[in-house]
């Protein structure tokens, strides 16, 4: 169903119009509107919308082209050997200059800061980074508390024990090859593993073999 507002006859009732509008509306009223013109109008609407879409797509295409060109230009700059050499040299100079500044400032102020009871910037930065890392560790420890249980520390102990055993074997072998008697080493890690509940009943690993003696 057509909306009443689309009907030119209904627009004749409107009072808020200009003279040219009135003439146009009169002309439209005098001419009967065949169904084909309605279809044409619909097609025109669709075409207008299509143009909008096309414009929209054209805009994005232009944007993509500009970005593509910018990326290509950047890549060319970075892949140029001359730029690479200049950049490499600049980084080197900048770092050395910065280091020199830090050293000079450190040397100059190092005697001054303690005199007034203040730490140096490097010390503060070092402490800040360590405190940050410790806070993260603490946070992790709290976060993992639910998932990480005694089992993790048991695995840790078992790994540690197996490393110690392996090192003992290597040490003993080295000493034997030097013609010395092998010292008594720790008992095999099998014992360590066997007391651990949850340890697989069969132990196919070389770590579990009697490597201690």
């Amino acid at each position, binding site marked *: 169903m057509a909306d009443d507002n689309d009907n030119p006859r209904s627009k004749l009732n409107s009072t808020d119009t200009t003279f040219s509008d009135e003439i146009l509306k009169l002309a439209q009223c005098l001419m009967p509107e065949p169904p084909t013109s309605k279809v044409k109008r619909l097609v025109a609407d669709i075409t207008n919308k299509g143009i909008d879409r096309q414009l929209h797509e054209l805009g994005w295409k232009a944007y993509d082209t500009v970005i593509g060109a910018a990326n290509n230009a950047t890549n060319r700059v*970075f*892949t140029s050997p001359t730029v690479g050499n200049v950049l490499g040299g600049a980084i*080197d100079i900048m*770092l050395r200059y*910065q280091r020199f500044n830090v050293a000079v400032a450190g040397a100059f102020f190092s005697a001054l800061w303690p005199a007034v009871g203040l730490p140096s910037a490097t010390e503060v930065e070092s402490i800040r980074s360590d405190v940050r890392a410790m806070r993260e560790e603490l946070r*992790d420890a709290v976060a993992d508390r639910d998932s*990480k249980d005694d089992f993790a520390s048991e695995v*840790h102990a078992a790994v540690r024990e197996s490393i110690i055993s392996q090192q003992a074997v290597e040490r003993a072998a080295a000493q034997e090859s030097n013609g010395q008697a092998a010292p008594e080493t720790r008992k095999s890690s099998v014992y360590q593993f066997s007391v651990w509940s949850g340890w697989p009943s*069969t132990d196919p690993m070389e770590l579990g073999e009697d490597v201690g003696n």
Partner: protein
Amino acid sequence: MSAINEIASLWMEGTMRTLDAFRTGFGATMDDPPPATRSRVIYESGLVRLRHYEARGENQKRVPLLLIYSLIKRPFILDLQPGRSVVEYLTKQGFDVYLIDWIPPRTDDRNHGFNEYVNTDIANAVRAIQIYTGIQQISILGYCFGALLGLMYSALHSGNVKNLVTLTIPLDTSPRQLPIEHLTAAMTSRSAKTIVEMYGNAPAWMIYSFFNTLAPTHHMLDKFVGAYRSSARPGYLDTFKLFERWLHSDVPMAGRIFLETSEMWRENSLVKGTMKVGESIADLTRIAMPLLNVIGDRDDIVNPASSEPLPELVSSEDKQNLHYPTGHMGAAISADSLKRLWPQITNWLSARDA
């Protein structure tokens, strides 16, 4: 007008996030978003926190899978949100997944080098899995720098590794096509030494700035415009914000490994077979286990040409390159990769699970 307002709002939010990160520090573990998959910390020592994600489903696999993530960002990108999580996908496929959640190095950890990371931290994590599961050989899946660490571990402790999957590994530094390769090459050993002498570790802000410098237009404007253009897609903005958090999750790189890495890349020593980890040479020819080398063809962080030579350098008989049309991060989080790339990886692992 509303488009400009929305883009401006996204831009403002992003800029504030960056400024806050510079002010309060990048990559604090406390800033990790809630995980999508439940985990249990089964081991912690050195700079390793080992998380276990239990396998789900009926078709459970025998061989445990250890994920080794890169050192310079937080690993929550692998478990970003339900439906967009590599860890979730792997556990649903029946893999018992273990993830090395690297503890960010402190000033005291400046002497942590490849030897400490590979021969102590990863070695202990593997040992913990062996003890935990009772299985001697595990599968390793390393992502980016984590793939390098996994590769070195596999070369030095090959008896403990059943299968090796390397994802976007920055191996061969001889190709020089990408901006990142030129910028890395531009950094002299003297600059690297100065950084370590000044800061102890390579600071997180420096790593963040380095990666942002590579694509300034993208980071300053285009990613926000892109977010606006895709905002009608359900859930897109949530993922975008989580991804942004990950982009700001840089962590410092321990001083020694930073120096060793820059030297390794300068000399291309791992490819040449001269790279020393501790007292031993990380000889890639000692790698004889099945190897799957996954390469992102659109990767602009790790040149595909840098990853490609790996199968030629190892002595495995069962080895292959798997090319996939994705970017560096897309390999881990894009919906397409989860639908098409990861099934190929899990099928490969499943076929070698016995």
